[in-house]
């Protein structure tokens, strides 16, 4: 445990020193301030006044509630796209920096197993981003709740879903980092997976359009093998809107992808000579 704490704390220290943490924190704060500003505009002030006037029984409450969920859904989508891309970009250098000659030898000379170094770094990195996601979501949730009196807890699931999908993509960043030690390549591959995800998610449409069985199988194979950023994003929206989620397969198949990728990264790291 002492070693894990030391490795996680070191990741935080580096994230602070490289201004990664503060960069994400600053952007989240800007987003929260932007929301505070938006809540002052007339249409929302009007909606809030209406709900205050008619109280909990008002038929307008449904409209305000819908507006709140729309706003929360927009936040979730923002986190999924730009927020995630920024987080991946910010995290891409944290693995290659550990592998620098003169630094890695010293780490490996300590009585620490190699998998511990990788997973400690991975957990630390996920926590750096996770804290910022939690800060942003809780900030927006509090502002909306304070202004509207509505506190739908479902929005808080955005923290878990976003952190989950970031952890899945971070596994790719770690793998590329361990093999190629290139932050740029790690970002490119991970963002490519994000872009590919909504395309692959159209598998029902594509199965009708593709003429041969083998091309349909390739499409299906890619869909199931790669992380389902888009589908998990849709699930998050379903949660925010209190809609029933019937299919959790994108969640577990993405988790399986992350587990395999991290295991591969650990295996390659364990066998490497430094």
């Amino acid at each position, binding site marked *: 445990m002492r070693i894990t704490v030391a490795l996680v704390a070191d990741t935080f220290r580096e994230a602070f020193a490289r201004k990664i943490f503060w960069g994400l924190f600053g952007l989240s704060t800007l987003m929260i301030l932007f929301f505070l500003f938006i809540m002052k505009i007339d249409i929302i002030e009007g909606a809030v006044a209406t709900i205050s006037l008619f109280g909990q029984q008002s038929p307008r409450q449904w409209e305000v509630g819908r507006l709140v969920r729309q706003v929360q859904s927009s936040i979730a989508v923002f986190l999924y796209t730009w927020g995630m891309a920024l987080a991946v970009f910010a995290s891409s250098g944290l693995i290659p920096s550990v592998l620098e000659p*003169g630094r890695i*030898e010293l780490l490996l*000379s300590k009585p620490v197993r190699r998998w511990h170094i990788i997973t400690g770094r991975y957990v630390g990195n996920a926590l750096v981003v996770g804290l910022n996601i939690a800060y942003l979501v809780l900030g927006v949730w509090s502002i909306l709740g304070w202004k509207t009196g509505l506190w739908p807890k479902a929005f808080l699931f955005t923290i878990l879903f976003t952190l989950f999908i970031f952890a899945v993509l971070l596994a790719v960043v770690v793998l590329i980092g361990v093999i190629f030690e290139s932050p740029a390549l790690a970002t490119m591959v991970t963002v490519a997976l994000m872009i590919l995800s909504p395309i692959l998610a159209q598998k029902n449409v594509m199965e009708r359009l593709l003429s041969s069985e083998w091309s349909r199988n390739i499409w299906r194979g890619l869909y199931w093998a790669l992380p389902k950023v888009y589908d998990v994003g849709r699930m998050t929206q379903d949660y925010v809107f209190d809609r029933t989620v019937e299919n959790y397969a994108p969640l577990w198949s993405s988790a399986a992808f992350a587990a395999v990728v991290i295991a591969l990264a650990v295996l390659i790291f364990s066998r490497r000579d430094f």
Partner: protein
Amino acid sequence: MSSADFAIETEDLTKVFRSLVRRREVRAVDGISLRVERGLSFGLLGPNGAGKTTFVKMLLSATHPTAGVAKLFGVPAQSPRARLPIGYLPENHRFPTYFTGVGMLDFYAALSGVGRRTRKRRIPELLEQVGLAGWGDVRIGKYSKGMLQRLGLAQALMNSPELLILDEPSDGVDPMGRIHIREILRELEAKGVTIFINSHLLGEVEALCREVAIVHRGKVILRGAVKDLTAGKGYRLTAVNPPEGLLEDFRRRSAGFEVADGRATFQFPNREAANRAVDELRAAGCEIESLVPTSHTLEEVFVKTLADQS
């Protein structure tokens, strides 16, 4: 002697680097079998590219051997347990510059399994010992090369190691700093710590180590006690104004000779020859200024050994 009596024990340790693209093989370490007893100060010497650093990296499991076995205190080197009693200072280290001196020592000591309370006590002690008291709260990005080297040494000592592996320990350190580091290492040796130095500075190794091994092209080509390797060359005799007759005679009998400012210096291969010369000079009424035993320097041994190989 059991395996645990040796701080370092390798058997046929080999590392071959293979290039998949060019299909080339480089045998960096070629079947090195080496035993370093507990408490010994040992120097590993060799020209650039001899395989010294690869050998050290295999001891620390940073590089995996192609063949052979490496053990530290009887424990296979690939086990993390083997690295518990070890302090290591790498060559060309790159400590993260976001650390302060204290933060850096704390982090690496925590990874070495040192408890929080011990770390708190050891850090100021060691900063004082390496001459960095007052610098603990400064970011190490502001440290000079010599200061980083001292901090690196403190880092290697945080877990009170039984085996200290130092790769070019006084690289970038000024002469006073070198003397200071040498004193620290001597104190550690006196306490029974095994010291393994990998260095190009032969004078430093000669001053610090009791045994050395010379590595060339991945193999150990010479190993022995420093005093044995450097001893037994002969005697240098200096006399004031020796008579011309003896001068000519000694010129023929000595291994080397030099005359300057009325003083003649002769090099004799052994004690008997030197004593006979002293007797003859004294009988001729000549004053002896000095008679000193001479030895090879480690540098001479090193150069000669490598020259013999090539």
